[in-house]
C-alpha cells in the first residue's frame, strides 16, 4: 500500500508542521482530495492525495513537525500491493530514455518496476535537491583506491573545519603535523589541543583527570543526621516530611516551533529594541456598559444581530484616540532613521488560539462605523479561533489591543507588537466602590470599573503624548458620548 510522503510544497523547504487532518482512518479518498493541512515556514498549505483508495494509517499527528520525505499517511489503493505503476510513482530505468531525446520519455514496457533498484524518493522534488542526490553514494573500491593513491602523491593537505584551521593558525600549529583522532581523518580542535600538549596526554589520561572527586558521604543527607545536637526539644515529634508521589514525568520538554517560535522572536525583538514605558489608568466604565446593553437590546440601533461587547467600544475608542493623538500610530524605522506616521489604523487584536498567540488586525479600522467594526471583529475572532488566520491578516498592524480582562485579571505591562509603537491592555470590568458626586454630595456607590494600561515606544512617544492618549481613551470609555464630539 502506497505511503504518501511529505513533499516540499515550496522551494527548498525541509520541514512542515501537521496542522489538521481532513481525513481519518477508514475514510475513502479520491485522487487530489485534500487530506491534510500543513504549516511551513512560509504559509499554510493544503496537500492533495495522489491516489484513489482508503486511508489505512495516519503516521504523523497534528502538531507534529515532520521532515520532508517522511511518510505521513498510508492509502490502500485496493490493488493489494500498491505496485501498480500507473498510480504509484515507481522507479524507472534511465536507459529507457536514451532514445527519447528532449521529449517526454516513454516509460519502459515492463511498467518500470523491476530492475531491483531501490525506489526513487519520489516526492522530494523542490528547487532543492532530491534526497538521493544529497546522500553520499559509495565509491567503487578501485576508484577510491586510485583516488587515495593520487592523494598520497599530492602534497598532503589536512582536513579540518575552518574554525579549527583558524584555531590552529592562531596557536602556530601546522595541521599536517597533527594526528586526527576521528575515523574520517578530520582534525578536531581537541586534536590540536592534544598536539599542543605535546601529544603526551593520552585520551584515557585526560578522561581520568576529568573525574573529580564525587561526594562520597551520601548518608549525611538522610534522616539520622537531621536532628542537630543543640536543637530545642520542645516538640516531641520532629517534622516528618510526608511521603509524596507523583505520577508522570517530572519535567517535559517541547520543541519551540511554529507560532510559539514566532511569538518568542517577535517579543524578544520588540522588548529589547523599543524602550517600553507602561502607564495605567482606572476608569469608571458604567456608561460604556449601559451603551453596550442598549446596543444589544434596542433594535433601533441595528446592532442586535452582531456581537457587541466592551471590547468593541474600546476598539472604536482606539480609533478616535489615535485621531486625536496621531503620534501613537507612528513607528520607528531604525534602518532609515525615520519616524513613519501611519495615516490609517490597522487595529490589532491579540488573540489566544489553538495554535498560540496571534495578532491579526482589522485593516483600515478607522474608516469603519461601529457595525462594520463589530462584523470585522467577529470575523477576526472566529478566524483566529479556527486557526485559519493568514499571514496577511497579521501583517501591517499599526496599534494593538490585548484583552487580558477576559481571563479575569486587572491589567498588565504588555509588550508592543513589532512594527508598532503602542499596545493597550484592557483589564477585567468589575463592580467596584467608586466615589460619585451628585449635587455636591460625595457618595460611594457600586460602579463598573476597569483598568487600562498602555505600553509605548519611548523612542518616539514621550510621556506627554502617551498620557494624553491614555486619558482620551479613558474619557471615551467613561463617557462614550464624547465620541459624538471627537468623532
Amino acid at each position, binding site marked *: 500500500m502506497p505511503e504518501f510522503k511529505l*513533499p516540499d510544497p515550496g522551494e527548498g523547504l525541509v520541514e512542515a508542521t501537521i496542522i489538521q487532518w481532513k481525513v481519518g482512518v477508514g475514510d475513502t479518498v479520491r485522487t487530489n482530495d485534500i487530506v491534510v493541512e500543513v504549516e511551513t515556514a512560509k504559509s499554510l498549505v493544503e496537500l492533495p492525495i495522489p491516489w484513489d483508495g482508503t486511508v489505512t494509517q495516519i503516521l504523523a499527528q497534528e502538531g507534529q513537525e515532520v521532515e520532508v520525505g517522511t511518510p505521513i499517511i498510508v492509502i490502500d489503493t485496493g490493488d493489494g500491493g500498491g505496485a501498480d505503476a500507473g498510480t504509484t510513482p515507481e522507479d524507472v530505468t*534511465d536507459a529507457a*530514455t536514451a532514445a527519447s531525446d528532449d521529449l*517526454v520519455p516513454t*516509460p519502459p514496457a515492463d511498467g518500470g518496476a523491476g530492475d531491483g533498484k531501490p525506489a526513487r524518493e519520489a516526492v522530494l522534488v523542490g528547487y532543492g535537491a532530491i534526497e538521493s542526490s544529497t546522500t553520499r*553514494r559509495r565509491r567503487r573500491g578501485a576508484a577510491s583506491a586510485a583516488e587515495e593513491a593520487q592523494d598520497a602523491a599530492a602534497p598532503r593537505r589536512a582536513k579540518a573545519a575552518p574554525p579549527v584551521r583558524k584555531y590552529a593558525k592562531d596557536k602556530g600549529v601546522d595541521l599536517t603535523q597533527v594526528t586526527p583522532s576521528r575515523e574520517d581523518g578530520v582534525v578536531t580542535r581537541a586534536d590540536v589541543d592534544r598536539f599542543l600538549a605535546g601529544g603526551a596526554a593520552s585520551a584515557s589520561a585526560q578522561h581520568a583527570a576529568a573525574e573529580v572527586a564525587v561526594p562520597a558521604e551520601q548518608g549525611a543527607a538522610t534522616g539520622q543526621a537531621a536532628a542537630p545536637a543543640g536543637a530545642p526539644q520542645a516538640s516531641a515529634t520532629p517534622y516528618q516530611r510526608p511521603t509524596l508521589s507523583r505520577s508522570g514525568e517530572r519535567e517535559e520538554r517541547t520543541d519551540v516551533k511554529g507560532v510559539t517560535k514566532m511569538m518568542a522572536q517577535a517579543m524578544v525583538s520588540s522588548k529589547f529594541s523599543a524602550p517600553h514605558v507602561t502607564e495605567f489608568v482606572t476608569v469608571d466604565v458604567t456608561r460604556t456598559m449601559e451603551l453596550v446593553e442598549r446596543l444589544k437590546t434596542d433594535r433601533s440601533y441595528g446592532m442586535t444581530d452582531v456581537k457587541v461587547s466592551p471590547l468593541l467600544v474600546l476598539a472604536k475608542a482606539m480609533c478616535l484616540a489615535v485621531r486625536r493623538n496621531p503620534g501613537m500610530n507612528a513607528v520607528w524605522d531604525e534602518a532609515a532613521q525615520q519616524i513613519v506616521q501611519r495615516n490609517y489604523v490597522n487595529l490589532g487584536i491579540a488573540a489566544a488560539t489553538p495554535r498560540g498567540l496571534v495578532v491579526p488586525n482589522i485593516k483600515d479600522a478607522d474608516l469603519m462605523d461601529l457595525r462594520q467594526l463589530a462584523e470585522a471583529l467577529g470575523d477576526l475572532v472566529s478566524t483566529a479561533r479556527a486557526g485559519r488566520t493568514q499571514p496577511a491578516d497579521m501583517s501591517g498592524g499599526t496599534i494593538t489591543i490585548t484583552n487580558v480582562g477576559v481571563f479575569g485579571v486587572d491589567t498588565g505591562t504588555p509588550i508592543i507588537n513589532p512594527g508598532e509603537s503602542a499596545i493597550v491592555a484592557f483589564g477585567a470590568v468589575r463592580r467596584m466602590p467608586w466615589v460619585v458626586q451628585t449635587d455636591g454630595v460625595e457618595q460611594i456607590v457600586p460602579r463598573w470599573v476597569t483598568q487600562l494600561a498602555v505600553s509605548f515606544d519611548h523612542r518616539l512617544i514621550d510621556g506627554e503624548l502617551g498620557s494624553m492618549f491614555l486619558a482620551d481613551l479613558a474619557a471615551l470609555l467613561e463617557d462614550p458620548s464624547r465620541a459624538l464630539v471627537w468623532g
Partner: protein
Amino acid sequence: MKEPALSDEEVARSAAPTATGGSPARGLHEPPERDMTDGGPDMVQFLAADGTRVPLTDVNSPYAAYLDELDEEAMRGMLRDLILVRRVDSEGFALQRQGELGLWPSLLGQEAAQVGPGRAMRPQDYAFPGYREHGVAWCKGVPPENLLGMFRGVNHGGWDSNENNFHLYTIVIGNQMLHAVGYAMGVQRDGDVATGDPERDTAVMAFTGDGGTSQGDYNEALVFAAVANAPVVFYVQNNHWAISEPNDRQFRVPPYRRADGFGFPGVRVDGNDVLASYAVSRAALERARGGEGPTLIEAFTYRMGAHTTSDDPTKYRISAEVDIWKKKDPIDRMRTYLLAEGIVDQAWLDGVEAEADELARRIRQACQTMPNPPHEEMFEHVYADAHPLVAREAAEFAAYQAGFED
C-alpha cells in the same frame, strides 16, 4: 458616523481607483491610473461577466466580423479548450503539491486570454511563450505531458519547438520578445509575408505579462519590430500582479497605450472574454501576415492563483480583490452564454467533464512514470554541434558517475 459605509468590494475599489472613477485626492506621486477591476471604456468586449452579449459599440464593432465566421462547432471547441486547459492546470498544481513537480505556474483565470489567441493562430504562425502559456500550448497541439516533463526537471525544454511552432518556455522575463521579433524579421526575409497565400503568410505571436513590460528586452523588441515593420503581435496578459508587484509599480500608462509611442496600434481586450480575445487576435495576426506590421494587445485579466506553487499571494493582496475577479470568471461566462444560446446542453458539458477526467488521469500517470533521463543528456544540447569543452566535461562527468558502486 461620518465615514461612509464601505463594503469589502468598495474597499478594494477605493484602494484601486479605476480609470473612469479616479481618485479625488490623487497625490503627485500616485500613478495616474490603476485599473484593478475595470478595463475602462477602451476595452474590447463581446461577452459580459454575466455571460450576456455586449451590444456593438465603436470599440468592439471593428472586430465583430471575426465572430460572425465562428460556427457553433467552433464555439463549442472554445469552451471545451477552456475547460480542458483548466483541468490540465489544476492537475499540474496538484502534482507539484504531491512532490511530482518542482514548480508549477498556474494559469487559473487566464484561460480565455490564452485560448483566444491560441485558436486565432494558424499552424504556420509561431508562438513565443513565457512560462505560463499552457493554454496557448494546448491550442498549438503541444501535449500537456511535455509541459509537466519540463517542470519535473527530466528534460531541458520539453518539446521540439518546430513541431508545433511553439517555442520553448522562457523563464527569463521578457526575453522571448526579442526572439519573437528576430524570428518575425526572418519570416520577412523568407518572403512569407503579404503574398496573399493564406497557407504561406506567417505571423509571430510573442507572449508576456504586465511585469514583462518593465524589461529592457521588451522595449528593445518593440523598437525593432516597429522599425522593421515585422509581422509580430505582442500579446501582454496583464494579470495585474508581477509576483507581488501590482500594476502601479509597473507603469503609469497602461501597456496598450504605450504602443502609440513605438509607432504601431495597441488595443486592450477583455482577457476573460474568449470571444473578444479571439477576435482581436485574429485581426492583429491578419494585419501582421498582410505586411502591415506589429500590433500590441493587452489582455486585461487576473491571476486567480499564486504566481507559482512557491508563492503565497495572501501576503500581498486582499481577498476582496480576488472575489471581484471570481465573478468575472472566463469559463463561467462562456458556459452561461452557450447554454443560453442552446449551443451546448448539460449532456455535452458532462461529456467534456468526463473527457477532462480522462485527460487528467492520463497526464498524471505519464508524469508519475516519467523516467529520469541519463546523465549524458544534459550535455547534449548545449551547442548544436560538438564542442570540445562540453565533450571534455561530459567525459569527466561520466567517469565520475562510473566511480560509484550502485
